[in-house]
């Protein structure tokens, strides 16, 4: 199968690639969210610990 046939997917290219594209999007999003949350949590905890030190 050559490249253009592969993309075309027998006329169903839009459907097939939308599906795979959406899957990729979902996987990336669910990976991205915890990573971003991690940064937020670390930042919040640093703040929290700093305040705890101050008010000791």
């Amino acid at each position, binding site marked *: 199968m050559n490249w253009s046939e*592969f993309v075309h997917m*027998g006329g169903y290219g839009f*459907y097939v690639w939308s599906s795979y594209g959406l899957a990729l999007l979902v996987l990336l999003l669910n990976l991205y969210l915890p990573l971003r949350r991690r940064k937020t949590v670390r930042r919040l905890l640093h703040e929290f610990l700093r305040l705890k030190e101050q008010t000791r």
Partner: protein
Amino acid sequence: MRERGKTPSPLALSREGELVKIYILIDMHKYASPKFFYTLAGQLTPWMAALTALLLVAGLYFGLFIAPADYQQGESYRIIFIHVPAAWMSMFIYVCMAGAGAIALVWNVKLFEMFAGNCAPVGASFTFLALVTGSLWGKPMWGAWWAWDARLTSELILFFLYMGYMALEASIDDPRRAARASAILALVGVVNIPVIHFSVEWWNTLHQPASVSKIGTPSIHPSMLAPLLLMSLGFTFYFFTVALMRMRNEILERERHTTWVAQLLESRS
């Protein structure tokens, strides 16, 4: 529960036995301790991620390049390699969620509470993915973006169950009450899912014209089975990876009062 008088049970252990029991309990508590799990999860995550990537790449390769086109559906059937594993994951994750919730309810283990709560977004995502890919698969076959096919309808109801779970958890402020209430909801849901599935199947056979079969599952050729399994396993390890990542975040947040978290942050900053 009324307290009966203390009569020795026939299963009472000897003194040695009691000591062994205590050691086992201490050990279990160590494993269920957030700190231990945090480090363990941190070590496991890269391996899980690597395994995920490997399985998904292999699955995609076999699915897109090796498996031949279907006789009836042409190339569009390749959506099956996303749709079916996603549907399986949506079910599997719900069961995990309910199981973890049950353990958290009965044995009061915080770690399982955290796990259950973190299952929901990933599970809902897979359900959503299964629904949309089901639509995308159905459109070229039936000419309509949505058909009340048995599997799609069951997935839709499962999506609502996930939404309900997440809404309940979000609307309770106290994390303990939220976890326990959601656990009960998940258990009620998990008992209902077979009933719902059965009812929808029945409803569908009654109303669907004979010509349109169940989202046209092509007869499973062995070359199609391999990518299906690879993608499913890949998604499973993906779920574990994400769950571990989310749990680590939650542990840090929940255990912020402990010394080990303080030390960890100091050493990292």
